[in-house]
């Protein structure tokens, strides 16, 4: 596999400027001391492995719960917007130019399995049901599906008339959910074959949907809007957040504890399964795009300014 071999070679020559200069322009990310402080747009963790992705094809890997991160070279410089870790070290990352990357070794090396810059459509999130079946959600209603482990990708129809940005895809309680632009929410009960449009409590964009372990679902988006449903999205209750910042990331931390974060340093905590939240504004007022649990009970925040850390609530 020539691509993979070249990636390995580049990884071996990590700090050699000559190797970086020799890499073909625009095809391969470059190792940068500040990658860990660059714009990161999504993160995933599983079995002690964490992967974060972001601008300029930055992929960072952590094996200590998000404290230390190491950048790896990938065969793209496109902005990466979503990452998913399956078991056994299989991982996926998606981004602009319809870029889809696959790793089979826990994020150490990556191969480019799909790319279509000429389509001018970014992918915004990725989710896999198993090693073979997965979805990449993107702008203008684009939902790509694979049933062969990523070798081929076919567009799926979510809603015939809609071309809204599909901002996030998440699974819970046997269903799949899509959070989309302009107040749209979709659900699939047959592993993504068919989708139904859910009644929306709001006409602004949703940037995330978070199924919780107790079966309820949170949906959040523009201007601090947060809604909770106990009936798989059939009806929604508005939850006051105390912030007008756009909410972008959520995480079920177990035992009823839920964290939601957003732009401008917004960070919300719930201790009652998402029924009520208390808000605070992080002093750096930077955007958070993904949350990981930190070992001290706090949070690892990924977003503007790279990897940050938030103390657990008092």
């Amino acid at each position, binding site marked *: 596999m020539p691509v993979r071999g070249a990636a390995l070679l580049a990884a071996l020559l990590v700090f050699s*400027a000559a190797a970086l*200069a020799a890499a073909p*322009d*625009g095809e391969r990310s*470059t190792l*940068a*001391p*500040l990658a860990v402080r*660059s*714009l990161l*747009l999504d993160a995933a963790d599983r079995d002690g492995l964490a992967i974060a992705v972001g*601008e*300029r094809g930055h992929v960072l890997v952590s094996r200590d719960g998000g404290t230390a991160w190491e950048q790896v070279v990938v065969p793209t410089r496109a*902005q990466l*917007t979503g990452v998913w870790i399956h078991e056994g070290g299989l991982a996926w990352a998606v981004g*602009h*130019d319809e870029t889809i990357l696959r790793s089979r070794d826990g994020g150490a090396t990556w191969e480019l399995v799909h790319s279509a*810059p000429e389509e*001018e459509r*970014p992918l*915004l999130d990725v989710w896999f049901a198993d090693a073979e079946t997965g979805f990449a959600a993107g702008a203008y209603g684009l939902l790509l599906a694979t049933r062969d482990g990523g070798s081929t990708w076919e567009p799926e129809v979510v809603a015939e008339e809609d071309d809204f*940005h599909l*901002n996030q895809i998440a699974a819970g309680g046997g269903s799949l959910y899509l959070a989309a*632009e302009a107040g749209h929410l979709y659900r699939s009960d047959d592993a993504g074959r068919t989708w139904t449009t859910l009644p929306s409590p*709001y*006409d*602004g*964009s949703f*940037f995330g949907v978070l199924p919780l372990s107790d079966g309820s679902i949170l949906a959040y988006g*523009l*201007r601090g809007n947060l809604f909770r449903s106990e009936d798989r999205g059939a009806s929604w209750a508005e939850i006051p957040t105390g912030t*007008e910042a*756009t909410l*972008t990331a959520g995480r079920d931390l177990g035992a009823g504890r839920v964290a939601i974060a957003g*732009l*401008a340093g917004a960070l919300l905590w719930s201790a009652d399964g998402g029924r009520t939240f208390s808000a605070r504004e992080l002093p750096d*007022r930077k*955007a958070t*795009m993904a949350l990981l649990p930190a070992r001290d009970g706090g949070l690892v925040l990924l*977003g*503007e300014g790279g990897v940050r850390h938030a103390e657990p609530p008092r």
Partner: protein
Amino acid sequence: MTRERFTSWLENLVFRHRPWVIAFFAVTTAFMVWSASQLRVDAGFTKLLPLEHPYMKTFVQHQQEFGGANRVLVALMAREGDIFTPEFFDALKRATDEVFFLPGVDRSRVQSVYTPNVRYTEVVEDGIAAGNVIPDDFEPTPEGLEQVRSNILKAGIVGRLVANDFSGAIISAELLEVDPTTGEKLDFIAVSRELEEKVRRQFDAEFVPGSPVDVRMIGFAKVVGDIADGAKRVVIFFLVAFVLTGMLVFVYSHSHKLAIIALGCSVIAVVWQLGLLTLLGFGMDPMSILVPFLIFAIGVSHAVQMISANGAEIFDGADSMTAARNSFRRLLVPGGIALASDTIGFLTILLIEIRVIQEIAITASLGVAVIILTNLILIPVLLSYVKFPADYPDRLHRRAAHMAPLWRWFSRVAAPRPAAVIVLVAAALFALGWWEGRKVQIGDLHKGVPELRAESRYNVDSAAITSKFSIGVDILNVIAETRPEGCVDHAIMTTIDDFSWQMANVEGVQSTIDLPGVARQLNAGWNEGSPKWKVLARNQSVLTQSVTYVPTSTGLLNSDCSVMPVMLFTADHKAETIARIVDAVKRFEAGHGNPEVAFRLATGNVGVMAATNEAVAAAQFPILAYVFGAVILLCLVTFRSLRATICIVVPLALVSLLSYALMAWLEIGLKVSTLPVVALGVGVGVDYGIYIYARFRSFYRRKMPLVEAYRRTLEVTGNGVLFTGITLALGVATWMFSPLKFQADMGLLLCFLFAMNMVGALVLLPALARWLLGDTHQVNGE
């Protein structure tokens, strides 16, 4: 011998037409006074730039388009708590108005939270909402202030117009090139003065008791104003130096008439120099303003030599006329050569292609050339008129008797054993100087504006502002040149974006600002503020949407979008930081492979420093080679002896080396102001050696034992050399009190060089002579 025949021909010419000589000097001086009165103060900062350097060619080329961002920042810092008090907002409103009405301020671009051009935008469900940070119906109530606080956050001006910890707020103003009310080029010094009068004195708690704010101000105009204020104090230093020198000359010469002649002729030399400056079309700037000091000090020191020689004749019982003629004859050649070597030494500095240094070279060499006329011709002529009191020889006798034991003791330096010790100590000092001198760094080593002292008001203000706001004062602009409409080409913008990111990763770069970065931010803005859309769109019309609202006043693009500066904010302006960044820029330019983009160095204050540092680094060895080459050549021609040349030049080399060690110890960097100092020091310092060696050789040739020859030398010239060293050192020592850092540095170094070159000539020269010449004169010994 021809030389002697020429000397006596000149002597007769001068002394037979004394009234004509005096008349010539009187008329010329009157003319020069008139000419000097036309002298203009010239703060032309382009003179400080190495314009021949490729970076500076870029600088000059893009100055018109991007030179406009001449900004002044006025920060009001809350003395207690944060800015959210009615008192603070009242002060900020009034101060904004004051800044608005300052002369030369571009009123449409004045920014503070109070100005209507500072707006907040927020993404709402159906698009983007915007408003003024301070709403029209603002009341300084807790609710009103809370609203403003939230608007400030939405406007994204924290760090720029509001302190990161809300402890202060900035009023930002841009200055126009031309004052619209007068139609003339804007006078920065006047703007600086207005800022002090209208803003600092009306709002700062130091001047207004009970004021809730401290005022901090930075900006290029303020720097110019503060330097001009500092430069004015030079007049005081000149007066102090004049009075001190006058007292010394009086003590030395035991005669007020002689003191007046010495000082008067030196002042005439200064006047001629200033007059010639105007005739040549030069102005005076804060750096070359120091040259008249040098001329005055060199003039006095040579006048003292003349007075000494004259005194020696009177001492031996000659009358005024004979004494004057003999002194003239005796000093014409060594004095002429000493001054010629000064002139040549100064002229070698011309080879450095920085205008201000070249001007120093020209003005200093002109001044020294003038001293040849005033001191070697006018002084002896005037001396021939002086009626010495009857007891004058007695006074000199008494002093000679007084000094004799000292000189007898001191002449032991030429004895074998002390000479050996001295030569060994000198060798050790050579090693030390070499070791320490290598640590001298090029460029500026400290924070703040290097022209001003670290504790100056400006630099204190600058430190306060940079610590509270996200504002960098050290900027290196790399100019990305491409084709017209380059900013809507995805590949071109990506190359520039890559460049910016690579530079951000270079140690010493704190942050970068560039058009692709702004375009990415705006693209996210068009997509509901989502960071996932912070990209350069491939679609040209989408990319156009991202750059079309960025005004050229940001300094990030020109009107046809063919030039896009990348601003690199650096952590400091140390030479090694600059060199590292410059290196990275050059490496990227060599390897990025996009034929449509060229990254050219550099503008911004750090860009200027980068060019200057490179020019200084390139010149530092040539300047020494030239000045020492000139001095060596002169010594060889004069004395026709390699050993004499070694005796004179080695002490100079040692002291020069030690001055580098001193610079390293005192953390004075090698820069435009300190580069010529060693050359000046050597050029002037060689005089001591020439005077001493010439006299010494005349005794030595009479087959006197070496120590005796040296004792006699000291009795005749020792006082003069000692006195000269002290005079010169004192003249420049006053600069150490200058509020301008570079004047203080130059003063300190020149003081060291002048004093130590004197010591070197008195101590090391005879010790070397002992080892090179042997005890008594050998017939073929030279």
